[in-house]
């Protein structure tokens, strides 16, 4: 993997999201979710191509409290955090072009 995608959990999440100078797109995912696997390579591409954006992943199996905190009821769920606060939520797998379009204002 060329880009640096961090795996966050309950002990590292707040610190990482709160201290990030760039917006962070967090991918809430799980091993058993087919659509999550489908968008994983797309997120890796975006992480490499978009320097102004960090990407992180949260495994909902390992961090159910984080999923609960953000009211996640469906994965893949992508939440974009700006200055530590959720600024945009996208639910469901989407093609790269659609993701980039939705992220447009933050890139």
């Amino acid at each position, binding site marked *: 993997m060329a880009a640096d995608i961090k795996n966050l959990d309950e002990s590292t999440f707040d610190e990482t999201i709160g201290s990030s100078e760039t917006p962070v797109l967090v991918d809430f995912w799980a091993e058993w979710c087919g*659509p999550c696997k*489908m968008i994983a390579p797309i997120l890796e591409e975006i992480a490499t191509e978009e320097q102004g954006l960090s990407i992180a992943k949260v495994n909902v199996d390992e961090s159910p409290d984080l999923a609960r905190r953000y009211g*996640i*009821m*469906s994965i893949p769920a992508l939440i974009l955090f700006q200055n530590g606060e959720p600024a945009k939520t996208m*639910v469901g797998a*989407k*093609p790269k072009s659609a993701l980039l379009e939705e992220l447009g204002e933050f890139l």
Partner: protein
Amino acid sequence: MSEIRDVVIIGSGPAGLTAAIYAARASLSPLVIEGEPSSTSDQPGGQLMLTTDVENFPGFPEGIMGPELMSNFRSQAQRFGAKFITEKVTAVNFENRPFEISVGNDKYLTRSVIISTGAQSLMLNIPNESRLIGHGLSTCATCDGFFFRDQEIAVVGGGDSAIEEAIFLTRFASKVYLIHRRDELRASKIMQERAFQNPKLEFLWNNEVAQINGDQKLDGITLNNTITSEKLDLKIQGLFIAIGHRPNTDLFKGHLELKDNGYLVTLPDSSRTAIDGVFACGDVQDDYYRQAITAAGSGCMAAIDAERWLEEHGH
């Protein structure tokens, strides 16, 4: 643009990927336009991407996870040289030869085409439905069941996939209502038996979902009894929709013959369509069996039909 391919395969479920394996092994260098990611069953890998254990695909005595099975199919096709594009076909032109397949502004020229676009989940098409997808309303039990631990939820539908989802969801939910508009199931006997034995499952026969309730997230549904027209409010946190499928044939309207129910017409005992050099396999042309193994079998037929057709036409 100028390269003319022997075969382009549209779609990448069991049918398309089996066709890709056979076509690749026949040195036809197939290009698979596999579709694009989504959380509906219209996506690369097809309907099995949204399932868990596949127990009836021969060769896996302990069963195999749907996404893993499809990833195996894909690797096998790749191993023999199939190429993949993870996008959706936007238009086809079968009027001129070679045929022209468009993906946005990109055009692919090909002597033959194998259509395996499959089918996608039907929705209820009632108000609030699309707004609450991902907020309590789901079309993917395997993706979302986890979030309904110790909650009360409902599944609507009466076929194998509805029963399978309902049983799967009892792993998480405290109670699963199964809402079906008739008083008997279409599901196979073995699934029915499992369902009737499951203490967390409660059947609400002769009911249909009349209304989906909830503001920010789903908090209940209103049922309409199909016999008495009685209304029933059900407080639930999650609703899973499994009411069947429709074939992905919008792309081919006006180009190929469709049955009244929208499925592609193929000639008896073959994968041929009315257009020479255009073949179809899998659920897009099968409104009867609709199994992964029959889709795979028909994908094999399509690749062999395409190979022989190309040979007869001097390619």
